[in-house]
């Protein structure tokens, strides 16, 4: 079975409760290799909870997440051992946090931040690790001379670039992003979005991007899922959903932002 004949990720009937409140209520979707999917909705719609359940950072109360691995076929992500799951999370997956502080080691250098995954996988050649780190800093358009500086000295946009480099160094096939550009200045946001777009296209990376910002979805995503109260209310090609929303809630969302 190859990536051409089946999706890289299949999400079926995810349910997550917080006490008596249902945060995610039976969400299903598929993601194909190289495809970028945006999950949009207001805060409280359950989109981040869904992302955490799909990325195996939290266990859902129901449903299944299947991932097509490189060598071992399709695996049930939540049925894997912790060791396998952690390995998957630092090789074939990436996770970009909204707050870069959560995704970086703030007190070690940029080079070590990027190199950590390589070292965890057994790379034991300092020179190679450093070269690889430098080349990734370049690819995310950072100043390579800052390779020995710690993220504490970086701007918000730089930190986010570093976090992306740290994730991509093992060439994952799937990256999860939780509001990757929010909290940044508009001009910084635009540049970061450009970078993300060229990286996902260039590396044919599959990605799930959680965002409340429809402009982010429009720029990055091939397809989108609209969530409200823990459920999917609409799904489709991004342009289609944004230009011709069918569900009243989507219509409201779209009409509430300025059209480009």
């Amino acid at each position, binding site marked *: 079975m190859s990536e051409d004949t089946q999706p890289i990720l299949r999400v079926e009937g995810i349910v997550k409760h917080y006490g008596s409140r249902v945060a995610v209520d039976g969400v299903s979707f598929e993601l194909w290799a190289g495809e970028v999917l945006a999950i949009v909705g207001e805060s409280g719609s359950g989109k981040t909870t869904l992302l955490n359940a799909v990325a195996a950072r939290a266990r859902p109360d129901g449903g299944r997440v299947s991932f097509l691995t490189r060598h071992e076929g399709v695996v049930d992500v939540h049925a894997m051992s*912790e*060791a396998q799951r952690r390995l998957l999370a630092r090789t074939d997956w990436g996770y970009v946090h909204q707050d870069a502080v959560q995704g970086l080691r703030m007190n*070690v250098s940029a*080079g070590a931040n990027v190199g950590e995954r390589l*070292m965890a996988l057994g790379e*034991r*050649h*300092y*020179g190679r690790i450093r070269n690889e780190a430098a080349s990734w800093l370049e690819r995310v358009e950072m100043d390579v001379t800052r390779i*020995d500086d710690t993220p504490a000295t970086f701007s918000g946009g730089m930190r986010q670039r570093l976090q992306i480099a740290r994730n991509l160094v093992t060439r994952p096939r799937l990256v999860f992003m939780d509001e990757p550009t929010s909290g940044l200045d508009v001009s910084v946001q635009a540049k970061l979005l450009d970078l993300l777009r060229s990286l996902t296209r260039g590396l044919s990376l599959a990605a799930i991007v959680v965002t409340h910002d429809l402009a982010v979805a429009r720029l990055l995503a091939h397809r989108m899922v609209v969530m409200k109260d823990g459920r999917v209310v609409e799904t489709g090609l991004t342009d289609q959903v944004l230009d011709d929303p069918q569900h009243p809630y989507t219509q409201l969302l779209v009409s509430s932002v300025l059209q480009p």
Partner: protein
Amino acid sequence: MNVSDLPAPVERDANFNFAYLDERTKRMIRRAILKAVSIPGYQVPFGSREMPLPYGWGTGGIQVTASIIGPSDVLKVIDQGADDTVNAVNIRRFFQRTTAVEVTTRTTDATIIQTRHRIPETPLAAGQVLVYQVPLPEPLQKLEPREVETRSMHGLAEYGLMHVKLYEDIARFGHIATTYDYPVMVDGRYLMAPSPIPKFDNPKMHMCPALQLFGAGREKRIYAVPPWTKVESLAFDDHPFEVQRWSQPCAMCGDTGSFLDEVITDDAGGRMFVCSDTDHCLARRTADE
């Protein structure tokens, strides 16, 4: 120096059980030791007792020694390589008082050597046991203080973080800046703190014919390196592990290959270098005579 040179022989104090600990406690500790030997480098939690010496002063090593020592053993105790430093004296007196076993300063004569911060220069032989006093058994603690987290890192053999630390050293200083308690991989599986021995001593742990036991009393952990076990100091391929070496020989015995202590001889910057292992130094000097 010979033990016969020492003042006031210590008498066996009949108020205490042989080697102080009660037999049930010794058994419990021996079980922990057996488990530690079976899983080289793995830290076994044990019911560490409050000893009549302060925590941090060798209570782990003392409990290990107390659990394995028998009347026919010959005990050597060193601190910083020397038999006559105050803490070594105190621990040796404790065992004399509670066991009356024969004590020695000669590495070759000892069946059990309890040590703090050094491995003797004289190579150890099969049948000997080296007992280390360990202040901080968790090699990852400085990088990750939460035990729940370090335990799962050991369980999953996730040691990338340790290399991040070494990477940072090289990026900042051009070389690895850890000089003692230099982390090792035991038998290719468990990351282990060798206790604060200088990294100079690390190679002696590798394929050592003697049994090496590590006791951390305050932290309540025992671990072990069985005889003939691979012990590898962490490094990068292009920044290999190095040990310290001195450009001058020991001022007393002339050795060029032993670990030297720096002794300040005056207040004008004068200093000399002498062997940290007093038995080794004395043996070389008496052999010359």
